[in-house]
């Protein structure tokens, strides 16, 4: 049995050591907001935070998580996460939505580190996250909007 800390809760899971964290999250624990896209850390759909750092869960063996704190889309919280989600909603970034959990987690990590990113910062931080609907134009705009929200220039409340 492995003990995992997910979104502040401790879970005990019975999984082979080589099982990627992604599949433990999705198939064992029901955290299906984190998506499978490529299985090779190429697309970022499976991005979660591991101790606050954006991490590709599809390529991280569950045995390597150890005592690390995992945060998924279902558990992100704090000012950057609230700002990102509010900005995403305000600008209606999503299209098919499948990559967006990963995009939002990655954007949250960026803003936690750099509350006022430039376009170049955004492109660098988000280059590992593929969106086949190509919502990139709005992702850039929404990260700037989230930055403004964090600076208190707009509300971080989600609409119903």
């Amino acid at each position, binding site marked *: 049995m492995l003990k995992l800390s997910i979104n502040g809760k401790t879970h005990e899971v019975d999984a082979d050591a080589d099982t990627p964290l992604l599949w433990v999250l999705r198939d064992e624990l029901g955290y299906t907001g984190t998506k499978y896209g490529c299985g090779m850390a190429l*697309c970022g759909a499976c991005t979660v935070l591991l101790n606050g750092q954006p991490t590709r869960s599809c390529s991280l063996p569950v045995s390597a998580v150890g005592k690390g704190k995992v945060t998924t889309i*279902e558990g992100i919280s704090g000012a950057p996460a609230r700002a990102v989600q509010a900005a995403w909603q305000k600008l209606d970034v999503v299209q098919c939505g499948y990559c967006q959990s990963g995009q939002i987690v990655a954007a949250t990590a960026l803003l936690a580190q750099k509350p006022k990113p430039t376009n170049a910062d955004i492109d660098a931080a988000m280059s590992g996250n593929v969106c086949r609907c190509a919502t990139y134009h709005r992702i850039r705009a929404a990260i700037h909007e989230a930055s403004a929200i964090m600076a208190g220039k707009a509300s971080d409340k989600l609409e119903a």
Partner: protein
Amino acid sequence: MDKTVEISRRGLLKAGALGGMLVVGFQWSGKSRAAAMPASLAPNAFVRIASDNSVTIIAKHLEMGQGSYTGLATILAEELDADWRQVMVEAAPADAKRYNNLMWGPTQGTGGSSAMANSWKQLRQAGATARAMLVAAAAQQWQVPAAEIAVAQGKLSHASGKQASFGDLAALAATMEVPKEPKLKDPKDFKLIGKQKLPRKDSKDKITGRAQFTQDVKLPGMLTAVVAHPPRFGAKLKSFDATTAKQVKGVVEVVAIPSGVAVLAHGFWAAKKGRDALKLEWDETAAVPQGTPELVAQYRALLDQPGAVASKTGDVVEAFKGAAKVLKADYYFPYLAHAAMEPLNCVMRQDKDGVEVWNGEQMQTVDQAMIASVFGIKPEQVSINMLYAGGSFGRRANPASDYPMECAHIVKATAGRHPVKLVWTREDDMRGGYYRPLYLHRVEVALDAGGQLLGWRQRVVGQSIMTGTPFEAFGVKDGVDATSVEGASDLPYAVANLQVDLHSPRLGVPVLWWRSVGHTHTGYAVETMIDEAAKAAGRDPVAYRLALLDKHPRHAGVLKLVAEKAGWNQPLKAGKKGEKRGRGVAVVESFGTFVAEVAEVTVRPDGSYKVDRVVCAVDCGIAINPDVIRAQMEGGIGFGLSAAMHSAITLKSGAVEQSNFHDYPVLRIGDMPRIEVHILPSDAAPRGVGEPGVPPIAPAVANAIAAATGKRLYDLPFKLS
């Protein structure tokens, strides 16, 4: 009303109302939920108004990112005068009697950018019907004439001060007579349609991780299946040894099916490990022998031979005899994978009533028939829960129903013992076939001494998408698949002598429509060649096109608008030292929507390039949701750029050489230009926007690169250095 129960028999999916992951597995109890529903008005198959004041709009089209749920809801809510905040969207069940695509005849499905166009009148009437019944109920309850009752934002009111919500009147309204011809609004009275920013109905679920995709479905007792497919197209299973696979912890069953060998396990990882542990022998005697180089050589030979005539006006042979100048180019377009973010998958369960399916369902009627044929049951015994699709770009609308059939064969081979979730890996998805076909084009243009078009000859070589499918009768005539030549055979530019012909080689590589279908290649060939003609004539590319578009005012309309907004007549700002900058334009009509795009490009000294800015003008008729239209143009531009800059599927001896995003690169954020979208005001009936943003971008960029460097690009993806 019993209709409510009937509509909701299975798979109730309320956008915005589904619980989080903890309720997965319990949310599919459509019957009990419908029975527990409050009294409601459900006058037709598209709307249900409950006494809790919710307005549920039933969407017959798949939401795969294109905004269909939002668009369909907008049309209906407009005529109903609902408050946008009270509107929810629910997926329709598979039932072609009620939910057929009116542009597809008796077939239910989503594609060809047809969702808005075919639903426009239907949903306006559906909304107006419900509104009239609410008004009739209020008139009866308040004892006032119906004509004196006003409806706005989900409330009915009368000058006497009486007021009621939709929910207050739903039960009484359900007893009113259903009007036959409800009065529709004058478009000048629209309050939701055309509103600049109506929030998407699927946003919140998609930014909180709650949206349910097929990949997320978990049924009690369900096993995950991963399939070993043949390594080459046309190869078949000879034998397999599952001994090692069955030793993998979690593997439950291994079964042979027509498309390979399926490993069923508790969860994906065990199934994949089991699949990878299979020992397989394939019979490759019927496998596709060619690789891409051999195919291109074969196709190139066909470029020299006349094909089936798709279009013929005047006499091109005579036109070329009288030409002062002839332009000629051969073009190459590779196979392309759809590579949607959600790799293909399907969930299926067999029970005593038939088969129940969960899928990002794009072609219900075809899939029902195909799945039914596997089990020997009636199509109506296949019920389908249409879930969000994590992209599709055409891939989930497959006349061969490849992956739903595969799932059906697995369920059948295991005698329905377990609900099955079939999951394709990214590699399976990339290598599993159904690509935008590889095409070659030859375009020859005859110009007079003044640079005017005398003749246009275009030959297309590439596999037919429609042949051999149920759509053949509708789409293939006299050996010409309309989807191979659309955009060329109906060339918009005025030319007295036009001939377009086609070779459709038959080949065992599975092909399929890919976002914007024939226009992905015809748009490129036509729009880059017309640009060459303008250059040869010494004319401005916009002015040259406009002079040839007298009979196509909507092409001309978007072209003029895009030129104005892009500042076409002002000089482009110079780049840094050593950089070359250029601006290019293209205009393409597809699916009844007209799109012009101007691209600004910087070419660096090392031959690398960047698309800096794209200005887009679109005329799609009445703009139902302007923000969704902008999003689709932005996304279409990115999708088209991805193919122009990066992507190609190639074959070696009938096996696909690519496997994942490292060797099938796609557009990433750093390549995304700044984009501005302008919507042309229009009174015309609305047409689609999911596809039409794609075709103009590759030629606009190519024309910009040519303007910057003088180099014309005839092969995709672009290679400059």
